């Protein structure tokens, strides 16, 4: 038998798992990863897997991870767009799996983009 608290925990965990199907309400954070040939060759797949890992560990509801094609800046791949509801898109470049926990913690959870990983920082350097 499950207690009320246990049922609530199941609800929360399952919602973070199936919210991918209910993304119609505009309150969802989207993580979009460039997964064309260039992105995959530059190592986008492990990056995506670590995003999924991190979201699961923190049981974040309302975050979806999806893929997109090549935007033309293949030299900057793997590229990841993070779009918080109602906020401008932030593009991260040359993303490696070890950078993912910081992006999730600082940007997705706390709403502060990680400036040094963004495309702006890379282009100015």
């Amino acid at each position: 038998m499950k207690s009320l608290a246990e049922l609530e925990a199941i609800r929360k965990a399952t919602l973070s798992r199936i919210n991918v199907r209910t993304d119609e309400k505009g309150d969802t954070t989207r993580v979009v990863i460039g997964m064309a040939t260039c992105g995959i060759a530059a190592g986008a797949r492990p990056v995506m897997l670590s995003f999924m890992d991190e979201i699961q560990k923190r049981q974040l509801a309302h975050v979806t991870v999806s893929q997109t094609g090549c935007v033309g800046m293949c030299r900057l791949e793997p590229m990841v767009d993070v779009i918080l509801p109602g906020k401008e898109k932030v593009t991260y470049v040359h993303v490696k799996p070890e950078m993912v926990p910081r992006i999730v913690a600082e940007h997705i959870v706390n709403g502060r983009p990680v400036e040094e990983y963004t495309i702006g920082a890379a282009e100015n350097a």
Partner: protein
Amino acid sequence: MDIYRAHVLVCGGTGCSSSGSATLIERFEQKIAENGLEKEVKVIRTGCFGLCEAGPVVIVYPDGTFYSRVKPENVDEIVTEHLLKGRKVEHLVYTDHATKEQNAEKALEDINFYKHQMRIALRNCGVIDPENIDEYLAMDGYRALEKALTSMTREEVIDEVLKSGLRGRGGAGFPTGKKWQFAYNSVSDQKFVACNADEGDPGAFMDRSILEGDPHAVIEAMAIAGYAIGASIGYIYVRAEYPIAVKRLQVAIGQAEEYGLLGDNILGTGFNFHLYIRLGAGAFVCGEETALMHSIEGKRGEPTTRPPFPAVKGLFEKPTMLNNVETYANIAQIILKGADWYSSIGTEKSKGTKVFALGGKINNTGLVEVPMGTTLRTVIYEVGGGCPNGKKFKAVQTGGPSGGCLPESLLDTPVDYDNLIAAGSMMGSGGMIVMDEDNCMVDIARFYLEFIVDESCGKCTPCRVGTKRMLEILNRIVEGKGEEGDIEKLEELATTIKSTALCGLGQTAPNPVLSTLRFFRDEYEAHIKEKRCPAHHCQKLLQYVITDKCRGCTACARVCPAGAITGEVKQQHVIDPKKCLKCGACMEKCRFGAIIKI
């Protein structure tokens, strides 16, 4: 429980299962594994999406791409293009019949078929995995049961249902709250809650889809009902012909028991509720409440007179509260969101939404849920997409064998219990069968009456003998042997049966005849007086003729199994009516539209 970036939802309802969705699921799983995506993409078997006509249906989230009529060989393409490379497979995306628009960029809710719908009873169908209680929990499942058990008194629960204005969805439209109150008021050492899932109307599959797509919604509502009226045992009476529904109910009951949401001391509140499944053997009359209860008791499924009503003396002579599947599917939402929310939907006397099974001559065959008060025209043309092949709409049959046929002039009737009865039909359980200009209304009436004659239990004379006599008259009429006075005889029999039959089945049996007589009397008269079927449907009353459009290609003569067609090459051919079997093979074969029925 893992997180996946994409979910592939494959419909596992009866419609899509019969068009091969099980093979699709296997193939998806295999292809996803082959491409190394098994950690990223999950395949889920859901309940019915409603758009059965476009089945098997597959939806890929998070983008919500809606693929229709997917064949096993298309799976490889969806996996390698969409799931691996993120490119939609455009040619498989659902196309709207009416607008010819693809939904590629649109959300599911924006397709015409779903736009006018409002899903309360079907809210989880096609969204969650019905065999996974966690997904039901995540959609606020069992929250209503928690709320009722921990913060509401039994009277408050009944009051909420009463105030919501919910009426029985099985067809009669009796206020559900009142039924609960009667059962609550009965004093007994044991009471029962029962669910009528013996859906028997031809063409109706609302209850089936709810049980297949969201079984926990019914289980939760029955437990709430048990708490409210003071019952510790519940029975679901479901047809054995619904194997998927039965299996998912069994799985769901097992999971609910494991989580302590069914059984003894539910959620530690001291409330006990046990739920059992009873299988019906497919008798139509067992959908009648007294017959259903006799069948659960293991007796012959025959109706008995009321009173005593089940709320006083039902199953095993104890007070019993019996509701339909769809009625139960609304309960949890009413408890959670409140009676005020629910009663704000619908018309003055019919609150909430109603699920309809659209069938017959309509483009979007399937399951729809619309607010009460939506017009028939909206349901048939906007949601249903109108009649296929540009044929002209003739009538819509609502309410199954107990209902009636409504003509085009009544299409602007807002659909609710009272309006449909005023129009000469009834709500019934929610079958909606559309007929076009090729349907003969006399033959439709004959079809429903034949069904009733087959399904009559034989206990009372008006139903056993009366309907049989009516069928004999109708059979004569469609064979061209109708006589003057037949219509009057039908009317007399119908009135007598209506007022003297024992149960609802018999009392409503003449309705299809009466309603077609009311709106399509001219068709009956044409059959009887002119020996002519205006719809060119009744075989004995029509002739196939070759017109001067004939080019003499000889295709018809070669396909005719009776050798009834003669003629020289490049000359107009002729059909010998004496030899013609009226099979229609020649008409199908003719490329010039030269063969017509008169």
